[in-house]
């Protein structure tokens, strides 16, 4: 590593440690930010010599990254940005902090995928899904797919693990018909994890025709784009690998969506040569992820935290949650997106019959939504009031980003 990069890396680690010591956060952003100021090429220097996998998509990237890190861990030490700091500053900080490791698995914000692919020369990228998320500032779904597509074609050596169930991802992972024939498109391995959310992919990104769906299949009614045959898929409580062998997956994380994330993690690890039969044993070691799925006991209430940031992830959260009293908390601060319109893209009817409490900065938006949805609820001002309003036993908490962090802070930053 050049001297400038060494200095930058060292200063970056120090800044991160100072930030943690000062109680200003976990240091995963500030350290990288300072490091990149000193040496803009720092991420590339830190990435050099490591076998790197990137994980990107709208939903499930933090969890899939954790699972893939555990799976690749069969081979040796793996650097990862486990705090979910998923932009280049976070990657820089994570790699600097980890020191020299043969492997790295990095979660990447979907807007930064092209940049991080270029900087890290990653070996593998897993593309999970693309759906609407914070539209008041994020790029449109189709535009994001186009950016991914343009980035992937520049990396012929890359191995792509992509979701066969998401038309936007399939299109992004498929080279354009008129691509420069001197470039070899990266090889794609398809996985199927099921998909509950379809509302962002009714129109073909290639030709504008309607996408038809039946059972698990989908196809464009106007051009050849259709669901590819997946090599990895979920069946019952396990994962089928490309040889057709079924592996039972025992996770400590709830929901079928996490089985899909496990399949993706096994596919990523397989690209590094990890046999699924070895990797699958590691997946059960993953418990909570930056507070997600964490369980905390408070006053006889067993509280479980679920993060749901956008319509697709709310549907998954309802699937994961037990039939128990449920607290929903909604904010609309900068990291959440300022617009609450998406609440009407979520069908809250699965909550009927459960005791529902609502709170958060934008609880009234949620109240109007639940009223129209025919879901009775009770508004509470604080988390403490919520706990006092439910009987001892399970309390499910589903919250969007900053609301989740607020509740985590109340519970003393549970891991």
């Amino acid at each position, binding site marked *: 590593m050049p001297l400038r990069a060494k200095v930058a890396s060292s200063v970056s680690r120090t800044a991160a440690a100072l930030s943690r010591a000062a109680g200003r956060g976990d240091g995963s952003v500030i350290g990288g930010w300072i490091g990149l100021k000193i040496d803009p090429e720092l991420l590339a220097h830190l990435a050099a010599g490591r076998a790197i996998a990137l994980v990107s998509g709208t939903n499930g990237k933090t969890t899939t990254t954790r699972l893939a890190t555990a799976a690749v861990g069969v081979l040796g030490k793996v650097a990862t940005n486990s705090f979910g700091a998923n932009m280049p500053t976070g990657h820089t900080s994570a790699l600097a902090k980890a020191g020299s490791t043969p492997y790295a698995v990095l979660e990447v914000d979907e807007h930064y995928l092209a940049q991080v692919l270029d900087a890290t020369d990653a070996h593998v990228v897993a593309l999970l899904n693309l759906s609407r998320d914070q539209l008041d500032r994020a790029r449109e779904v189709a535009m994001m797919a186009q950016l991914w597509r343009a980035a992937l074609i520049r990396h012929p050596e890359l191995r792509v693990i992509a979701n066969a169930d998401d038309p936007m991802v399939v299109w992004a992972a498929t080279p354009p018909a008129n691509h420069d024939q001197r470039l070899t498109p990266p090889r794609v391995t398809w996985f199927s994890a099921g998909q509950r959310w379809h509302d962002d992919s009714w129109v073909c990104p290639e030709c504008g025709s309607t996408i038809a769906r039946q059972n698990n299949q989908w196809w464009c009614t106007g051009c050849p784009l259709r669901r590819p045959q997946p090599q990895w898929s979920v069946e019952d409580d396990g994962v089928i690998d490309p040889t057709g062998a079924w592996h039972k997956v025992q996770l400590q994380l709830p929901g079928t969506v996490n089985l899909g994330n496990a399949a993706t993690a096994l596919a990523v690890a397989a690209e590094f040569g990890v046999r699924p039969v070895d990797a699958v044993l590691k997946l059960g070691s993953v418990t909570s992820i930056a507070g997600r799925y964490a369980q905390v006991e408070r006053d006889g209430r067993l509280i479980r935290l679920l993060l749901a940031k956008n319509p697709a992830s709310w549907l998954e959260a309802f699937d994961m949650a037990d039939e128990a009293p449920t607290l929903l908390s909604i904010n609309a601060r900068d990291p959440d997106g300022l617009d609450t319109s998406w609440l*009407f893209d979520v069908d809250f009817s699965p909550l009927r019959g459960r005791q529902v409490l609502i709170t958060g900065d934008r609880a009234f938006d949620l109240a*109007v939504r639940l009223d129209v949805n025919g879901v009775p609820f009770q508004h509470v001002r604080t988390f403490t009031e919520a706990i006092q309003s439910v009987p001892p036993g399970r309390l499910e908490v589903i919250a969007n980003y900053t609301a989740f962090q607020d509740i985590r802070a109340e519970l003393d930053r549970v891991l």
Partner: protein
Amino acid sequence: MFSDSLRIVWVYPDLLSTYGDRGNALILASRAQRRGYPVEVLEVRSDQPLPATADIYLVGGGEDGPQALGAQRLIADGGLHRAAAQGAVVFGVCAGYQLLGSSFFAKGTEYAGLELLDLSSDRGPTRAIGELAGNIDPRLGLPPLSGFENHGGRTRLGPEVSPLAQVTAGIGNDTRTEGAWRGKLLGTYSHGPALARNPALADLLLRWAVGVNQLPPLDDTWSNRLRAERHAAVAAAARP
């Protein structure tokens, strides 16, 4: 025209549904049902013919490509024109508002609109993102508009339409006026589930469709709290 049940058409949810637009159909249906009106909500995709005999048509927001495609298909289909000519209620939101006019811009190209409202839209210097509020045309007898806008367009109104509201916060058409209406056609930049924050506007559309001057009141506690909270937030943001 309102017969056995109130028929609400959600126009092209496959194209024009980017921001919770389903909410407007749900809110209208819920408010009509609570008054005892039977309701039928039809979701008509862009590869299906648009029925011309429904009572209310909802044209929602969308990304540039789908907006242009939606306008082309609506012009080719002709169903919305026939419905409007027969006195149906049409409610356009954001991209759906723009395409009711004579022209709009998407992906840098000018597209023909449906010419149902005398207005045309252009690209503005900045994207309008944030709270939108305004005093609604007194002839409509509604409390102030409250909404969230997210659009890059600016809209010029012709003499045959009236502004829906005079802007008190946000951009709307051009920082002065917001939305437009004529007869039973009404459009707004207050995007997505615009009726969630404006139950009186929802009732206006229902009254137009049903042909009554008044509807029995509903318990709007939560909508009113939401409106008050948003009003306070806009006022707080305006303070120096």
